[in-house]
């Protein structure tokens, strides 16, 4: 059994590194073989949006280190993602990787693997979207996420002062390894509002009647009970959450692929209308 830690921070021996390593120690205790990759050590180019990767057997055409990262993930049974929150959400390296993961989303390459998320952050109230990118990443890859934990630590390497944080990181790694071994996807962290991604963000739809989890796309209504706000999700939409394999298949099959026909039908009109933009601010020479 192998547990791989992916660290989304440029700072070696920083807090993300420390909690990831402590988690790996916990995983080792549970009998796991471990590995750690700093995502910032690798060349991860931006997705170019061609979409051809979705139709080619060989996948993405970009020559960088992303295929290597996928190969390490493929070899692992469980992933610890330790990614700091600098400005309201994850660091950019994770988003860069997410965009490149699109090709895998529709193939289900990693579906059923296990993951734990750890987010070191500095200031309470400045991390509303900290779990968004980790949820998207593991959602599209089809992982069972069993922890989402935040660590309130600030300066470089300060996590070592916080015994509770270290203990929590150790427990996360240990529980992840045991979950993999026992094939037990039970969620271990505190439950959130969304029963799927466990996040606390809710989007009010423009009709001002319904709300949805912006990550999972499940809908519901807001209610108040005993002075507390509740979100009552529509049972019917739970099965159609964004990262469900059938939803993903339908999205790919009916929202993406038929755009080819639309693209071809509108080609002449697009060419005529697009000419002014091609000419605008065109560099000479």
């Amino acid at each position, binding site marked *: 059994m192998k547990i791989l830690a992916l660290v989304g921070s440029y700072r070696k021996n920083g807090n993300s590194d420390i909690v990831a390593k402590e988690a790996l120690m916990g995983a080792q205790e549970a009998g796991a073989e471990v590995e750690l990759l700093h995502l910032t050590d690798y060349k991860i180019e931006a997705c170019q949006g061609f979409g051809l990767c979705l139709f080619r057997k060989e996948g993405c055409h970009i020559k960088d280190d992303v295929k290597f990262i996928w190969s390490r993930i493929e070899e692992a049974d469980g992933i610890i993602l330790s990614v700091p929150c600098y400005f309201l959400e994850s660091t950019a390296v994770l988003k860069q990787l997410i965009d490149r993961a699109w090709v895998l989303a529709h193939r289900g390459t990693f579906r059923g693997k296990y993951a734990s998320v750890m987010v070191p952050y500095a200031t309470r109230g400045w991390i509303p979207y900290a779990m968004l990118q980790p949820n998207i990443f593991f959602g599209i890859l089809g992982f069972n996420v069993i922890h989402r934990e935040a660590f309130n630590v600030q300066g470089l390497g300060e996590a070592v002062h916080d015994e509770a944080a270290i203990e929590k990181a150790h427990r996360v790694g240990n529980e992840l390894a045991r979950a993999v071994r026992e094939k037990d996807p039970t969620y271990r962290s505190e439950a959130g509002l969304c029963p799927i991604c466990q996040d606390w963000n809710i989007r009010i739809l*423009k009709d001002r009647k*319904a709300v*949805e989890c912006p990550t999972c796309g499940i809908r519901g209504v807001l209610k108040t009970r005993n002075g507390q706000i509740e979100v009552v999700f529509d049972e019917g939409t739970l099965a159609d959450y964004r990262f469900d394999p059938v939803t993903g298949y*339908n999205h790919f099959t009916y929202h993406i692929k038929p*755009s080819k026909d*639309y693209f071809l039908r509108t080609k002449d009109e697009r060419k005529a209308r697009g000419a002014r933009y091609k000419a605008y601010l065109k560099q000479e020479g």
Partner: protein
Amino acid sequence: MIEKYTAHLRYYPGDPLREIRLEDLDRISKAYGVAVAFQKIDNRTLSEGMLKEETLDKTIEEITQEVITVSSDDEKRFREAVAVLYETYRAPRTPYGFWGSSRDGGRIAKAMADETGGGW
């Protein structure tokens, strides 16, 4: 003859928030005084426990979908009917989800999808 305001609302598998039922469409047609037609196309086959279909080289019209066509010469009634259809099923989700609509009907239906129907 196509009426001035005609919109084809194309819903693909998983798009409608609830089952599209003829009796509900009939009720909307009568309540708002507009013509509402419905077409269901299903070309999926069961494979590996899932309903599947190859759509890359097919036309927008022939792939599996449910198409609600709402028509009227009266803009106000047309808008009211589209609004209730969006509230019931949500708005079509792709740029080609209005393909085949009349110019005015398609323009209004698409703008309304941004205004209501959950927004973007």
